[in-house]
């Protein structure tokens, strides 16, 4: 079928009409904890059973979300109304290319256009139903997936992006580019999260900066670029373990300083979205 961008956008708009808030989780840099954060944000928001939460994983080459949500091996089902998301809880549904692969060794070796096609399908064909929060987990970089998601979601409304970094300059370098990308495509930035921010030795309780903030960390960068620092999350070996087991770290380690940080950050994101909604309603 010939490509009709306007029609495609209209289809996406129609499908996502019932989504109240959309949050993109971005980072220029790989391995800083986007998927970890996306998963925990989803769990955190879904703790309120009255809220309907959707987690969309558009990392086509490295889909980590199924594993982190304990949904490895699940498959996607089709119905008359489209693709059914895979549900972790009644009010938390997930979609990822991971569910379309039959083996953990299957590699998705696709060039840009094919990846874009799948992202479009994810937005157009997944029957999310009525959702309060759509969280979109992205791969690292500023390329096809990022351009496509922003383009397709322009049909609806994005509350903003949460940008994840770690403290060291090597990460911040890439994150500054991501912030630039957001400005270029007029994507509002909810704020930055500094992950892996210090490690407290379980034995002697001394703190080590494993990823040293040689240029002032996220704090300095946020000051310089006038974006919000949503919070800092320390390293905790339980985080990786929970992710590997597909369990929510927030439930498994409720007393951890990292859990406290995550919860504070999630609350700030909720407040931002609520304010937004209120402002939009005022305009109408």
């Amino acid at each position, binding site marked *: 079928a010939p490509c009709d961008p306007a029609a495609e956008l209209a289809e996406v708009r129609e499908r996502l009409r019932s989504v109240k808030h959309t949050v993109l989780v971005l980072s220029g840099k790989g391995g800083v904890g986007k998927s970890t954060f996306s998963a925990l944000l989803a769990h955190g928001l879904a703790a309120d059973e009255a809220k309907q939460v959707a987690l969309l994983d558009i990392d086509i080459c490295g889909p980590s979300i199924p594993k982190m949500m304990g949904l490895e091996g699940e498959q996607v089902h089709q119905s008359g109304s489209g693709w059914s998301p895979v549900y972790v809880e009644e009010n938390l549904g997930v979609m990822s290319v991971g569910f379309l692969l039959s083996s953990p060794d299957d590699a998705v070796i696709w060039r840009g256009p094919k990846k874009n096609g799948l992202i479009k399908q994810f937005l157009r064909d997944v029957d999310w139903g009525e959702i309060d929060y759509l969280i979109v987990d992205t791969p690292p970089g500023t390329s096809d997936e990022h351009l496509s998601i922003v383009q397709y979601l322009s049909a609806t409304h994005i509350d903003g992006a949460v940008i994840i970094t770690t403290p*060291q300059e090597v990460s911040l370098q890439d994150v500054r580019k991501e912030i630039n990308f957001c400005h270029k495509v007029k994507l509002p930035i909810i704020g930055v999260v500094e992950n892996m921010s210090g490690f407290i030795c379980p034995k002697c309780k001394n703190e080590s900066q494993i990823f040293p903030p*040689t240029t002032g960390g996220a704090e300095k960068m946020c000051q310089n670029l006038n974006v919000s620092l949503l919070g800092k999350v320390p390293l905790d070996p339980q985080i990786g373990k929970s992710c590997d087991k597909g369990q929510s770290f927030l439930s498994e380690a409720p007393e951890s300083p990292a859990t406290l940080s995550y919860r504070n950050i999630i609350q700030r994101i909720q407040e931002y979205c609520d304010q937004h909604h209120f402002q939009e309603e005022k305009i109408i």
Partner: protein
Amino acid sequence: ERSNLAGVRHILLVLSGKGGVGKSTISTELALSLRHAGKKVGILDVDLCGPTIPCMFRVQNNDVHQCDSGWVPVFVDQDRSISLMSIGFLLEKPDDAVVWRGPKKNALIKQFVADVAWGDLDFLIVDTPPGTSDEHISTVEALRPYKPLGAILVTTPQAVSVGDVRRELTFCKKTGLRVLGIVENMSGFVCPHCSECTNIFSKGGGEELAKHAGVPFLGCVPLDPQLSQSLEEGRDFIQEFPKSSAFPALAHIAQQILDGTSQQSS
């Protein structure tokens, strides 16, 4: 006309399905180790969105010049024993985002492979972004006529990383790229205050994957704040921190690569 890669003895790629596991770190430390073994090394950085290699050698402000045979790589010091090429050198401002779709990325990668006047090198290390997409397909295709030695795959120990690296192994199989081995990076952290070792990102996943996939296991590299610091400051970790916890592992990886190539020639 002599190709720009004609003087390069061995080409090896550093891959991972997963981001942030230390590909650029391993590429950098491998280059430094090989230099200390008397080799001439080039690093081609095909991560177009997040080019970190120039900073790791503190040459991010350098410009790239042209010569008759193409682009002159950036030398990191007077010795000219390590040379680099990266999109990082072509950006007007370091914070400029390269927001390109696949086809434009592919075009630049083809140029990077064909048009950099490396001269004579013992090793060309190709540092890649995470994934199995445009950059990887284009790089492998462009390098195929030059018969690369193979690929080093980097992972961190936990299952979430190993899961992506399994896919990268499939990529190597499908594209006919030999796997030289797997490195398990960020494998344990020894507290500098009390020497207690904590497996922050779990342990053993890389080794297990190597066994499961029937490829060599090149070793575990622990988390080392001195290594992170060196990379931040563009210092020569191999020269300055031989007593650090990551040094033996990194030196061992380089030795295995060298042994592999000397076996090849004999």
